[in-house]
């Protein structure tokens, strides 16, 4: 287990270096969600927003940030595979989950920074308490990490050519988000709706934040646990069918 942890640590450090190597992409990744948030909610600028309002107004953006960034991380693993990287390095590491866990840690760090900025911007523009929003956003990120990786990991079970990875990621992200919005319109936000928590990452993210505001854990936990276990199982099965070889034989 120690060797596995060291391998995850080394790969996390390497992937962070890769991320910091391209500052313009990093700034775009961090800045774009903040820009969209501002553009869409400018009518609420400098008005006091309650946490219940904040959940409905801002949390769909948070869901998009988490899902989109996780999709990008998964696509980067797929691109590494298409470059022959997984095939070579898989024989070096304890098992290929080292790559995925390392990417998940990098994703947590990156999204954690973005959510920190969102909290700061929210405190400035919507007059919400910075610390009260920040700890809830970070807690939401931790709570939804496993289910959202469960949404994204099936992509690694399919053989995709290098050129098609980005297109597939964009399509899947759009389908997940539009589907989530459709479910959101069809259903009222209720923390007890198990199916909606499983099927919609937007719904799940909003509910996680909501429960951290209202504290109704007893009604929330069954739906959350089903989402966690169900999507965790999807992720595990996807990992079992992980494709290590590039689609175009190198």
């Amino acid at each position, binding site marked *: 287990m*120690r*060797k596995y942890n*060291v*391998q995850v*640590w*080394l*790969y996390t450090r*390497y992937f962070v*270096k*890769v991320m910091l*190597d391209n500052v313009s992409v990093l700034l775009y990744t961090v800045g774009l969600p903040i820009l969209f948030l501002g553009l869409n909610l400018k009518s609420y600028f400098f008005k006091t927003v309650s946490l219940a309002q904040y959940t409905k107004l801002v949390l769909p953006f948070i869901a998009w940030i988490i899902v989109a960034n996780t999709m990008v991380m998964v696509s980067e693993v797929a691109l590494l595979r298409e*470059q*022959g*990287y997984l*095939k*070579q390095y898989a*024989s*070096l*590491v304890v098992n290929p989950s080292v790559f995925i866990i390392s990417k998940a840690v990098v994703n947590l760090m990156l999204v954690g920074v973005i959510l920190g900025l969102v909290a700061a911007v929210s405190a400035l523009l919507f007059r919400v308490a910075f610390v009260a929003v920040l700890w809830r956003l970070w807690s939401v990120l931790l709570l939804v990490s496993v289910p959202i990786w469960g949404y994204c990991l099936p992509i690694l079970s399919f*053989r995709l050519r290098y050129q098609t990875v980005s297109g597939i990621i964009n399509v899947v992200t759009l389908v997940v988000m539009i589907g989530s919005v459709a479910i959101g319109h069809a259903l009222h936000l209720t923390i007890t709706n198990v199916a909606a928590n499983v099927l919609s990452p937007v719904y799940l993210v909003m509910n996680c934040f909501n429960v951290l505001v209202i504290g109704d854990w007893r009604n929330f936990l069954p739906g959350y646990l089903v989402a966690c276990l169900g999507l965790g199982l999807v992720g595990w099965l996807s990992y079992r069918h992980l494709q*290590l*070889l590039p689609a175009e*034989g*190198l």
Partner: protein
Amino acid sequence: MDIEQLTYTFPKALQPFFKDLSFQLPEHQVNFLIGQNGAGKTTLVDILLGLRPFKGHITPTLTNIYLNQQLPMLTSIRVCDVAVLVLGIETGRRRLTLADLASLVDGPTLAFLTPIWERHYRELSGGQRKLVQLLLFLQVDRELVVLDEPTAMIDREHAATLFTVMRAHPDRTYLMITHDVRDLAAFPAYQVLWLADHQIKASVDRATFEAALPQSAFMQAFQTV
């Protein structure tokens, strides 16, 4: 290593690509795999590494490592970062100094890495970059080492360094895909496997190879790969 009755069919293909393929890889020596582009060399290697499902028997199962033809690495990282990544993963070390390196790698690798230890990847030539990874991976202890065209795009001086490192670990079984007949001369004993028409067409040792007439089918084949 015995490969018996190996049959492999590509996903969605109706006919097997390899059918009842049988051959041997003598252990603790270098085995060269030659064949034209598209002959299935990399596919065969994938099967031997356990990366493609197949029918048949491969005995014994050896721990293995695979070295790709070319692997992109971040140009902004330094040689020492690559060393920490490869050797750290293998040894469980989070940090690695040049002083530590002497106890972890063989002499030729130490001699090659020492002068470029702090240099960024972008400052190295393509051949040097490739050799950095090849030599570091060859420090990883595995029974079967598979090298996919390791001498492509590197000069003969660097190829000689690679072969010196390979000879420094004679206890391993090597399988090397190559298109360069000059690679064979670096080893005192070897086997050459010629893959064509989805079969191992010939399997010859060094003495047989060197005695073969230039007009023989096997030698003619090597001229064309």
